[in-house]
C-alpha cells in the first residue's frame, strides 16, 4: 500500500511532467552513438541539481530506463556496432533493418522492453522490501562478504582481460582513498593540498572517464564522412505482423526471467543477460526461424531487449536494499542519490519509505512513457542519429565541462576532469575497462569502513570474517558464481566466434 502512496506522488501532474522530461532526455541522449547508460546518467546529472529530491529521483528513473532503451535504437538503425549491452540487439536488429523490417525490430524492442520492464518492476516491488528486511540484520562481517563478491565480479568479469580489469579496479580504490579517512579522520594521500582533503569527486571521475575519455578516444580515430542510418520503412507491412507477435511474446517473457535474476546478483549486469537470452533464443528456435538467426530473426531482438531492461530493474534490488552498486550505471545512480542525502541501504525503506516508493512508482510510469514516446518519435531519433559527428563530440565536451564545473563551481574541477579524461583515453586505447574503476571508487570506502569495523569488533582476528553463517554462504556462492561465469564466458566467446564466422560467410 506504500506503493499506492508512491503512485499518488508520482502521478501528480508536475511529477508526470518530470518523468516525461526524464524519459525523453534519457532516450535522446541514450540514442546518441557512443553514449551508454552510465554516461547518460553521468552527463545528465546537472539537470537535477536544482530539483527537490522526489522530482530528482523521478527524473533519474526516467533517464535510467530511457538511457537503457536508447542504445537499442542506435544499434538497430546505425550501420556500425554499438555499446556492449545492446550489441546483441545489433546482431539481428541491424539485419532486420537492412531487410526493410526496421520498424518491426524497433517495435519488438520497445514492446519487449516495456513488458520486461514492467514485470521486473513488479518483482522489484515485492522483492526489495523483503531483502531490505533481511538486510537490517546484517552486520559488518556480512557486508564485507557481499562487497568482496561485488569487487571480484565487477573487476574480474568485465572486459576481455582480467588483469586490466583488476588494474582499473585498483586505481579506483586508490582514488577512493584520497582524502580524509572515514574511521579516524586522518588525511591520506592529500600531500597537504587543500583541494584533495575532501577527496576527488565521483562526478568528476565518472564524467571524465565516460564522457571526456570517450570523446577524446573517438576524436583520435574519427570516421569521417556522412553518417549511414538505415531508413525506417513506413506502411502496413513494416509494423509487427501477427506472426511477429507470435514469435516475440515468448522471447519477451524468457528474456525477462533471464535478465531480472542476473541483474540482482553482481554478475556483469545487462551485458551478460543479453548474451544469455540471445543464446537461449537461438537454441530454442526451430526450423525456418532457426535458419533466420544471423540474418534478422525477430526472436534475437525481442529476447535480449527484454533481458536488458529486466536486468536494469534487477540491478536496483542490491542498490536500493544494500546500497551496493553492481554496475557502473548503478554507481552513477548511487552518486546521484547521495547528492540528495539519500543513503540507499536496508534503512532506506524505513527512514525514507515515501521517497523510495515514489521512485519505484515512477519506474512503472517511466516504463509506460517509454513505450508511448518511443515508437511515434522514431523519426526524431533518426534525426538525432544523423547529427554531424563534429557537433556531437563538441557538444559532449561542453556538457562534460558543464557537469564538472557545476559540482563546486570551480574551474579547477574542470582541470581534474581533463586529467581523468586523458586517463580514460589511454584506458580505452589499451583495453582497460573503465567501469570497474568507477564502481571501485564508490565501493572502496564503504568496504574499508565495514572491514575495519568487523576486525575491531573481533580484536583483529581475521577468522571473524567467516564467523557468520551468512558470510560463509556468500563466499561459497561466490565460488559457484566464478565457476558459472567461467562457463558463461566460454559460451559468450563461442557465440561470438559463431556470429563472426557467419558474418564472414554472408
Amino acid at each position, binding site marked *: 500500500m506504500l506503493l499506492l502512496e508512491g503512485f499518488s506522488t508520482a502521478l501528480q501532474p508536475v511529477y508526470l511532467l518530470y518523468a516525461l522530461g526524464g524519459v525523453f532526455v534519457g532516450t535522446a541522449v541514450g540514442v546518441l*552513438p*557512443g553514449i551508454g547508460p552510465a554516461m547518460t546518467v553521468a552527463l545528465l546529472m546537472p*539537470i537535477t*541539481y*536544482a530539483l527537490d529530491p522526489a522530482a530528482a529521483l523521478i527524473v533519474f528513473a526516467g533517464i535510467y530506463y530511457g538511457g537503457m532503451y536508447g542504445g537499442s535504437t542506435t544499434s538497430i538503425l546505425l550501420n*556500425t556496432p554499438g555499446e556492449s549491452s545492446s550489441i546483441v540487439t545489433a546482431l539481428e536488429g541491424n539485419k532486420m533493418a537492412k531487410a526493410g523490417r526496421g520498424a518491426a525490430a524497433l517495435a519488438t524492442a520497445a514492446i519487449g522492453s516495456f513488458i520486461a520492464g514492467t514485470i521486473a518492476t513488479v518483482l522489484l516491488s515485492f522483492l526489495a522490501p523483503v531483502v531490505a528486511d533481511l538486510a537490517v540484520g546484517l552486520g559488518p562481517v556480512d557486508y564485507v562478504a557481499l562487497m568482496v563478491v561485488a569487487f571480484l565480479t565487477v573487476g574480474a568479469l568485465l572486459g*576481455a*582481460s582480467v*588483469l*586490466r580489469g583488476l*588494474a582499473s579496479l*585498483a*586505481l579506483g580504490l*586508490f582514488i577512493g*582513498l584520497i582524502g580524509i*579517512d572515514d574511521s*579516524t579522520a*586522518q588525511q*591520506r*594521500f592529500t600531500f597537504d593540498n587543500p583541494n584533495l582533503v575532501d577527496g576527488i569527486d565521483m562526478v568528476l571521475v565518472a564524467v571524465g572517464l565516460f564522457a*571526456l575519455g570517450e570523446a*577524446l*578516444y*573517438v*576524436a*583520435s*580515430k*574519427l*570516421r*569521417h564522412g556522412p553518417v549511414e542510418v538505415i531508413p525506417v520503412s513506413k506502411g502496413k507491412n513494416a509494423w509487427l505482423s501477427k506472426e511477429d507477435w507470435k514469435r516475440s511474446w515468448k522471447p519477451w517473457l524468457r528474456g525477462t526471467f533471464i535478465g531480472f535474476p542476473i541483474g540482482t546478483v553482481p554478475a556483469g549486469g545487462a551485458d551478460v543477460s543479453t548474451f544469455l537470452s540471445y543464446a537461449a533464443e537461438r537454441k530454442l528456435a526451430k526450423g525456418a526461424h532457426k535458419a533466420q538467426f544471423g540474418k534478422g530473426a525477430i526472436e534475437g531482438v525481442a529476447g535480449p531487449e527484454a533481458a536488458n531492461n529486466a536486468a536494469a530493474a534487477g540491478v536496483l534490488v542490491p542498490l536500493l536494499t544494500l546500497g551496493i552498486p553492481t554496475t557502473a550505471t548503478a554507481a552513477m545512480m548511487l552518486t546521484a542519490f547521495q547528492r540528495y542525502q539519500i543513503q540507499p541501504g536496508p534503512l532506506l525503506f524505513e527512514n525514507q519509505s515515501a521517497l523510495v516508493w515514489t521512485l519505484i512508482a515512477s519506474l512503472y510510469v517511466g516504463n509506460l512513457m517509454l513505450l508511448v514516446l518511443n515508437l511515434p518519435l522514431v523519426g526524431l531519433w533518426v534525426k538525432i542519429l544523423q547529427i554531424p*559527428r*563534429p*557537433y556531437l*563530440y*563538441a*557538444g559532449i*565536451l561542453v556538457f562534460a*565541462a*558543464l557537469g564538472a*564545473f*557545476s559540482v563546486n*563551481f570551480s*574551474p579547477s574541477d*574542470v*582541470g581534474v576532469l*581533463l586529467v581523468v*579524461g586523458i586517463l580514460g*583515453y*589511454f584506458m580505452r*586505447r*589499451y*583495453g582497460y575497462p573503465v567501469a570497474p574503476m568507477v564502481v571501485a571508487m564508490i565501493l572502496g570506502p564503504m568496504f*574499508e569502513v565495514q*572491514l575495519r*569495523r568487523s*576486525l*575491531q569488533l573481533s*580484536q*583483529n582476528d581475521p577468522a571473524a570474517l567467516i564467523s557468520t553463517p551468512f558470510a560463509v554462504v556468500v563466499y561459497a556462492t561466490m565460488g559457484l558464481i566464478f565457476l558459472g561465469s567461467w562457463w558463461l564466458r566460454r559460451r559468450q566467446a563461442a557465440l561470438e566466434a559463431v556470429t*563472426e564466422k557467419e558474418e564472414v560467410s554472408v
Partner: protein
Amino acid sequence: MSSHALTPTRRPTGEILFALLFVSVGAAGLLTAGSIPIPPSETGIGPRAFPYIVCGMLVLVGTGIVVQVLRGKVGQAEEGEDLDVDAKTDWIALAKLVGFVILHIFLIEPAGWPVAAAVLFSGAAWTLEAKPLGKAILVSVAMALVLQYVFGGLLGVSLPPGPLLEGVPFFHG
C-alpha cells in the same frame, strides 16, 4: 570483435609505459603510506592497512600487465560506432582538443561561462573538421546562450554569465 587483436603490428611501448604508470602510482603510494598518522586510540588495523593493500595490488597487477605485453599479449582497443578502427591515431586532433579544454578552464571566470563554452564547442568542432566553420561557430554561440539560459536562468545552476551578459537578468537564477 576479437579479430583486430591478432594484428601485433603496433609497437607496445606506449602500452608498457601506461602499465608502468599503475606500478609507479602503487610504488609512490607504498612509500608515502607509512607517513599516514595513526591516532593513539586506534585498536583495529588502522588507516594504513588499506592503502598498503591497494598500492601493493597496483604494483602487482601493473607488473603483471607489463609481463603480459612483453610476452605479446597486447590489450584490445575499445570499439565504437563512430570509430574508424583502421585509422592512425590523430595526435594533433587530441592535442588541439586538450588545448581547447584548457582554454575553456581559463576563460570561465574572466570571460563568463557562455563565452568559454562557445570557444570550447567551436574549437572542438573545428578540430573535428566541421564544415562550414561559420555554421559551427553560430551553433556554438546559440548553444552556449541556450545552456546558460536553461541552467543559469531556469534551473538555478549558478554559471557565471561573464562581463558581456552581466546585465541580462534571465541569464542568472
